[in-house]
């Protein structure tokens, strides 16, 4: 998103919501109490009404002829052929120019002191970096110098040599922040989270210098794990110092080469790396498509291991809650149904959805009202909605005990830093309503409202937007590389 363009004249809020081309959203959030919440009504554009629980429509299997308010299998809007043609043309021209340039002069970046060595970078990856990425690299790796809140201070950069190096000018630009993963706004430098983190830094220090298995377990880690158990409604949970490492280091201890994994097309790099390191056989199904999943699962179960044809020891479906690049929310009820039918296990990576979806902030499991015990392995990170760092895995006691004994991170990697753990404890307590007197609920409601408003407004302005309507991740497709830069 371009940082500081001026928005055109405001379209009145009511006009958008009353526009009959959009579904009416009538779920004003009333205070959620633990005794079951309120029942409201949602009016569909075709005139039917279905009852809701806590403001969200239930999947509605009992009345299957009623269209489900939660759109899952939406076909993404496609751009015009004109735009598609010019996008391909842009890339084609860039690659052609790159080839011509490299034909006449060898790659301008040369390695020193290593004459006679096999080149370190061969292949298309570095060609792409030199010729395409370099030209538009100002879009990424931008430097900030303030807390990533609603407004952010960006440090201006310029390039004196067409993108080979970027230098800071020293000027600071104040922008509205639509780029950080700060869904609930807990990345703040004042307030209860900041104060608690300061107190912890002074009391406990900032590092443990030891893995959890040895001398790295502090009281605060135990407190954090108890809180996570309460928040998610599971039997047991375990936390790690880094979200990426949670996937990479724990999937190998759960899976082995005699296991089958069905992984979504657009799964995150950490899941793919973790699955690769585990050695399990991975079959990829089309994004969020439960029919394709069922078909591939049946085939794999019937045929057994591709080489030995032995039956699989176990099968796991690996999906994410919200996909960070597509903005889509996973079709959890259908996946749970398939999982039960075929006796497989389900692993849900809620990196982006925990804290950001669901009436209580419990993630995609809470959003659909699925029983947490149906999802065998719930994984998530604390980086996004909680404004900290780290990851967790939650599930049954046996599972977590197994991870405590065999997880690579428990044995070799340092434990989470205490102020980070404290930040999670404070923000999670606020979301749960234990602290802050309604602050958590206010933030959850505000996020849901902001998401809906933003998505509609952007669509109204004519942009092509991917993803589910309730997802706070909003991919606005720009197509042409020249437009992005």
């Amino acid at each position, binding site marked *: 998103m371009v940082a500081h363009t001026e928005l055109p004249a405001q379209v009145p809020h009511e006009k958008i919501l009353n526009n009959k081309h959009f579904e009416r959203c009538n779920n004003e959030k009333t205070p959620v109490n633990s005794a079951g919440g309120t029942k409201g009504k949602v009016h569909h554009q075709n005139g039917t009404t279905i009852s809701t629980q806590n403001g969200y429509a239930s999947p509605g299997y009992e009345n299957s002829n009623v269209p489900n308010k939660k759109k899952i299998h939406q076909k993404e809007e496609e751009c015009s052929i004109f735009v598609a043609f010019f996008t391909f043309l842009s890339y084609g021209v860039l690659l052609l120019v790159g080839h011509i340039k490299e034909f006449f002069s060898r790659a301008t970046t040369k390695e020193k002191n290593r004459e006679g060595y096999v080149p370190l970078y061969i292949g298309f990856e570095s060609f792409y970096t030199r010729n395409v990425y370099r030209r538009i690299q100002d879009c990424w790796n931008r430097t900030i110098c303030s807390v990533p809140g609603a407004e952010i201070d960006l*440090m201006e950069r310029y390039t004196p040599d067409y993108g080979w190096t970027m230098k800071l000018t020293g000027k600071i630009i104040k922008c509205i922040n639509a780029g950080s*993963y700060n869904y609930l706004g807990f*990345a703040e430098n004042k307030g209860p989270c900041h104060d608690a983190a300061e107190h912890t830094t002074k009391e406990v220090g900032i590092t443990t210098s*030891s893995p959890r298995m040895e001398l*790295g377990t502090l009281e605060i880690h135990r407190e954090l794990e108890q809180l996570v158990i309460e928040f998610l409604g599971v039997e047991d949970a375990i936390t790690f110092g880094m979200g990426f*490492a949670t996937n990479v280091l724990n999937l190998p201890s759960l899976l082995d080469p005699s296991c089958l994994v069905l992984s979504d097309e657009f799964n995150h790099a950490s899941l793919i790396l973790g699955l690769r390191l585990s050695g399990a056989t991975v079959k990829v199904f089309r994004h969020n498509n439960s029919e394709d999943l069922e078909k591939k699962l049946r085939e794999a179960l019937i045929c057994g291991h591709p080489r030995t044809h032995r039956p*699989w020891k176990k099968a796991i479906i690996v999906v994410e809650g919200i996909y960070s690049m597509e903005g889509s929310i996973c079709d959890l009820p259908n996946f749970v149904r398939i999982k039960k039918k075929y006796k497989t296990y389900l692993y849900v990576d809620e990196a982006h959805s925990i804290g950001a979806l669901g009436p209580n902030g419990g993630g995609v499991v809470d959003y659909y009202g699925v029983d947490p015990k149906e999802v065998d392995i719930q994984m998530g990170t604390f980086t996004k909605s909680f404004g900290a760092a780290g990851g967790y895995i939650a599930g049954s006691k046996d599972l977590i005990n197994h991870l405590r*004994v065999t997880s690579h991170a428990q044995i070799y990697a340092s434990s989470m830093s205490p*102020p*980070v753990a404290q930040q999670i404890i404070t923000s999670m307590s606020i979301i749960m309503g234990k602290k802050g007197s309604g602050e958590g609920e206010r933030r959850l409601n505000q996020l849901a409202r902001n998401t809906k408003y933003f998505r509609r407004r952007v669509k109204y302005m004519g942009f092509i937007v991917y993803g589910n309507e309730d997802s706070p991740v909003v991919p606005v497709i720009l197509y042409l590389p020249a437009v992005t830069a």
Partner: protein
Amino acid sequence: MSSQWNVYESFQALLQAGPYHLALEGVLVMCIIWLFTAKKQPSKLIRLTKKEEEELIAEWMPEPLVPNPPKEDHPALHTRTIYGKPGRYLDLGTGEKLLNLGTHSYLNLGERPEVEEAALECLHKYGVGSCGPRGFYGTTEVHLKLEDRLAVFFNCEKAVLYSYGFSTSASAIPAYSKSGDVIYADEMVNFALQRGLQASRSRIVYFRHNDVEHLRELLEEQSRLDKKDPKKANATRKFMVVESIYINTGMMCPLPELVKLRQKYKLRLFIDESVTFGTLGPNCRGITDHYNIPMKEVDMIMANLESSAASSGGFCVGTEFVIEHQRLSGLGYCFSASLPPMLAAASIKVLDILESEGCELVVVLQDKCRQIQEVLSKLSSKLEVSGEDISPVKHLRLRESTGDREADENILRKIVEKAESHGLALTLASYLWEKEASPPLPSIRITVNKDLTTEEIQKVGEAIQKAVMEVME
């Protein structure tokens, strides 16, 4: 030059062609028609009926998600909790504070007030989390400053910062080495490096621990094979991965000989300096400083900031050509949130301290390491100590193993428990035995702290001696 062929002239040419020519063309056309119209061979795949498929699916019984859950009394499920602030002394809830010989805080910089001040100052400005990967507004001024300072500290061009020590090694190696390349690694490299080697999909050749001759033999063999197939050799990159001081054994790698081998056989050298960051060398710049080897002989140095630097995360330093590649190819860099700024600020302060007082700190630490080594080697005949004199990491092993690894571990665990009652907090070195490439022997890992006094060192020797006597005699 050539006038346009028109249809009439083509037809004339066809009629003038010889009969043999026409016959050959006719046969070729018939072949093509046959290829397109011939019936396909019946597929060899057996098609099951719907009923058979349903039966197979119904019969399939998966094992439980965790087939052998650990027993409730497994020691890993009862790890010790530390109360209060970890430092030179630890409070394990036993009543008295125990001398800390288990955590990797060699220089004890986490206890310095200025480091805490720097972290708090950054907390007041940036909050705790950075809420984004480096590519999407997770890069703060603090990160850039730390990377510049690290590059200057090591006298290199650039540095790249990771948010977790384990991910540093595990992401850096696969960014350069792909399938088809060869990596020569010491057999005792730490687990994070082993995961990096596995993730790279290259051919891994382990050489015996610190055995330069064995490495030379392996390289010689490879170069003979290369001469036979120079084309393949020119497309295969070769790497060498070692640690400066191995955390699994406490021994130092013979860097000058390795550099000579690197130059002769055209390898690229990656060194993991997690243990020696700030603890080795007259200017505390690590092993290249210790052996006085210029930085251009080493391709990349990786280290984590979780030991001497009293913070979190890790980094890689090297030339710009090598390091900048990781900004797009290092998985743990691109696809993960950046280091919390307050921890980066603490590391910057640590670098300030190392640059001003580093030389003295290293001297003091190495003196203490030598003293501890002396005390430990005079211990009971049942235990032997392994590790360099000046290494801050040492291992205590059973001189005569019982033959069963679990029994050895149990004995050592009992020694650790007894030592607690004598005022020492030790730790058993923990490993994932089934997954290690060459599992080390069970041992107690002792880490030396710069601030140990002579009396405390004496106390260490006595306490371990008592614990051993109680357990083994």
